[in-house]
């Protein structure tokens, strides 16, 4: 291994590419961008749920939520580490996040306006994320694939917790039931948008999707993943007793899939371009925390430097 030609052979053999293997520059850049965006999403994703830590309505839920948001920080760390194996470093990637040069998942630009949203994020957002991420456990790039295995395990735990929050609400008081339904109404369509714009048929054979598939980074088209998500989620909604806000949603015996209505792609693009409810808030919060912490990071570096000097002095 190591020679440039090996890359294609490894990919063809569905073998893993490892950090020290040669790889095309585009493959590296695509992975860096994708892993970084994924890591950023974990970090920004702490905010919408973090918003409810202080107000969680029971101590048990508060503990579960704190642990969950903390797990997201952990996922961010694994993923930044995975990206670092490609020859970038975390602070560089964070700078790109902070200056808007790299993105995070647009779903986190939606606000969490009630406690039920914590449930809906777990159920729908984590559910959609898992659908996206499970195939990445077989991604051609080793460190990313391994990070995803760990992340997916925790995410499915989070997804069950979200489901359980809504389950409890749906069986609670009238106000709680209404809260759960309202959350499902607001999060359903944004969750479907998480799979990205349509790329089936012709679209799938050209452009980014095709290249990522050829490289073994992407395994299914956005539309296929979206359909799988719908097929998985509709029965769960039934079990919860919640109505999904789509009059066109019905089982299609012939296709063996659920049909569903038109997604509002104008909204998708609007939010992606910065005009979502929380885009500027999320960035301001993140950049604020980073800047307020600068003196701490500098101090840690300075102290480590002094310690290293002292160690040298002690040896000499």
């Amino acid at each position: 291994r190591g020679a440039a030609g090996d890359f294609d052979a490894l990919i063809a053999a569905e073998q893993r590419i490892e950090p020290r293997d040669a790889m095309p520059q585009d493959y590296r850049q695509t992975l860096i961008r994708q892993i970084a965006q994924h890591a950023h999403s974990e970090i920004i994703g702490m905010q919408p749920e973090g918003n409810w830590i202080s107000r969680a309505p029971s101590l048990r839920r508060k503990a579960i939520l704190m642990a969950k948001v903390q797990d997201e920080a952990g996922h961010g760390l694994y993923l930044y580490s995975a990206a670092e194996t490609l020859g970038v470093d975390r602070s560089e990637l964070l700078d790109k996040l902070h200056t808007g040069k790299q993105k995070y998942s647009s779903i986190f630009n939606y606000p969490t306006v009630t406690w039920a949203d914590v449930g809906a994020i777990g159920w729908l957002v984590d559910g959609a994320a898992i659908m996206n991420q499970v195939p990445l456990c077989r991604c051609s790039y080793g460190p990313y694939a391994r990070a995803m295995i760990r992340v997916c395990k925790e995410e499915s735990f989070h997804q069950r917790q979200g489901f359980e929050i809504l389950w409890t609400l749906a069986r609670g008081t009238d106000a709680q039931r209404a809260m759960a339904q309202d959350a499902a109404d607001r999060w359903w369509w944004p969750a479907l948008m998480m799979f990205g714009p349509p790329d089936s048929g012709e679209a799938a054979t050209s452009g980014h999707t095709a290249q990522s598939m050829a490289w073994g980074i992407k395994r299914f088209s956005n539309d296929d993943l979206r359909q799988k998500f719908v097929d998985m989620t509709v029965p769960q909604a039934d079990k919860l007793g919640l109505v999904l806000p789509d009059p066109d949603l019905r089982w299609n015996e012939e296709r063996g899939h659920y049909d569903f209505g038109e997604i509002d792609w104008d909204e998708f693009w609007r939010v992606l371009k910065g005009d979502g409810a929380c885009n500027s808030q999320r960035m301001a919060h993140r950049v604020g925390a980073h800047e307020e912490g600068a003196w701490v990071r500098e101090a840690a570096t300075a102290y480590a430097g002094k310690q290293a000097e002292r160690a040298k002095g002690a040896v000499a």
Partner: protein
Amino acid sequence: MAAYCLGLGDDALVYAQRLGEWISRAPQIEEDMALGNVGLDLLGQARALLTHAGELDGGGRSEDDLAYFRDEREFRNVHLVEQPRGDFGFEMARLLWFASYQCELYARLTTSSDPVLAGVAEKAVKETTYHRDHAEQWVVRLGDGTDESHRRMQDALVAVSPYVAELFDDDDVSVAAAEAGVGVLPSTLREPVLDRVTQVVELATLTMPEQSRWRSRGGREGIHSQVMGYLLAEMQHIARSHPGATW
């Protein structure tokens, strides 16, 4: 004895509430995780202690009844833990004192005549030792880091100092608990805690602040600082908006 457990539980609960505010706001992601961990440990302690307090007082109140449906005057935590989130230096100064205090306290409570409390203490000793180590490392790093961090860390020690004495006040409830062999007399924890903190402060090239002109008082009697009402409003609002609901 219920009141004694409530005091310890409220300290842990209220500080967990404050530490939760750090999540997504820490200076680095590792610290989001670390402060979240400390908060989670404290929340765990609080749940065990409030549950036990609810059993002891015979009123049949659950941990959530006690956390969400008591009024400010019924909370028995010290002022230190309710103070608003400051900068990271302030947090490390507060954690240094609080974890050092809890460490000594729980080490002693492992031999409490109340087996439940002894059990909680057994677990808490390990947790608070980690918290204390974490704070100590940061206080040293910040004190002996840059000029700015040194200054900020020194300011933080000064800012926290008026709230320290209250940790060691012998209120009636603690005195009774100590006499019954259940609890620890807070004043007896003062010296070991002070010694340890002093050593850390010196190692950090900082100086112990002089006694401030005023000091906090009365948390254990339910007299809190102004911020407490706002903290509780935030913590309790959803639960109180849905009386009788399960979550």
